[in-house]
């Protein structure tokens, strides 16, 4: 048993899962993974759903993705313990240490900020890597192609200037 699946196997499996989710015998909807965040914010901070229009808009999609998220936590945990053997508690990614800095505080502060603007960005665009890039482009949606192009450009520019990419050995 290998501990890693190759990228092409991952692509085939994800495609199969996506088609199952789309089909009327499955869930008859795309896979998405960012609407659950404002939904959870509503649940955790006890916001009144009658008062905030946005909570009403995301009620169905948010709860669907919320249940899916619980599943992916379980799936990720079980796979990491029994198959990839990658489960361990850690704070600092190896590549951050190498290409950015060795400060834990810096990593945590940047993580918090990045998480914050990531959700704002995803909700402004109406989707994330799963909802727009994967599900949206599979439907040949123009909106998802615009989003995908902007994200890749922005990702590559940030990677180029945020990290010290020349620090190879």
């Amino acid at each position, binding site marked *: 048993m290998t*501990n*890693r*699946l*190759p990228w092409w196997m*991952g*692509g085939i499996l*994800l*495609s199969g*899962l*996506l088609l*199952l*989710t789309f*089909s009327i015998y499955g869930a008859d909807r795309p896979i998405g*993974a960012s609407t659950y965040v*404002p939904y*959870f*914010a509503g*649940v955790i901070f006890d916001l009144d759903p009658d008062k905030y229009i*946005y909570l009403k808009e995301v009620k*169905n999609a948010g709860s669907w993705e919320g*249940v*899916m*998220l619980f599943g*992916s*936590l*379980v*799936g*990720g945990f079980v796979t*990491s313990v029994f198959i990839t053997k*990658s489960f361990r*508690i850690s704070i600092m990614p190896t*590549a*951050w240490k190498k290409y950015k800095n060795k400060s834990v505080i810096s990593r*945590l502060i940047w*993580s918090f*900020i990045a998480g*914050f603007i*990531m959700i*704002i*960005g*995803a909700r*402004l*665009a109406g989707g*994330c890597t799963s909802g*727009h890039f*994967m599900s949206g*482009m599979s*439907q*040949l*949606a*123009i*909106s998802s192609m*615009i*989003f995908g192009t*902007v994200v890749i450009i*922005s*990702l590559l520019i940030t*990677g180029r200037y*945020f*990290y010290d990419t020349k620090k190879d050995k």
Partner: protein
Amino acid sequence: MDIVVVTEGKDLCSRVVQMMENVIHQGHGSLVLVFLIGIIFGGIIQYTRVDKFEKIAGFAMLKDTIVPKMLFLTVGLTSIGLYFMIEAGWAHYHIKPIIWQGLIIGGILFGISMAILGKCPGTGPVSIAEGRIDVLVGAIGGLFGGLVFTLYYDDFFKPLMGESLGKLTLLDFFKGHENLVVLIFGIVVTAVAILIPKVELFDEADLSKLPDEARPDKK
């Protein structure tokens, strides 16, 4: 037959139960199926290791191309499969609207944060499940992002997103040639996935736990 559970409470637990009830009643698959889709999704993400910081941040630095290769392959294969399923009446399109400002501002913010956090909202939870505390902090940041978005949606974010220009797909520009367009799109995107050169950035901390013959970097 409707299943009715009493979920009138106001505490956190009953709000979570209400979430499950929403899923049961919205007709997008049973609760078990949705949960199962999540398990498989998390399993695939974990098994292919694309939840690692080195994969997305590595792509941002152009030191790893596994994520784009896998994503493009998924899109290429799904686009063709989905089109035939829709033609057969087994599925429907669920298109997101074109909202220029939202897509561009949102895309820029999303790209920046993906490069810094090294995760996206789908892979993040999977890496929390394998014990990454920094990503958990990122998720808490995300919750506050979701809170701020909800609180200021009407006054700030909705006007910022701009007007919707409708739900267009590539097919709308090529009326009458739908089959051909889908086929070409699917093949081109799949070819892109295969043609992107494969570079990988490995994490010694993970690989050191594997026996030598199982290490992908020593093959």
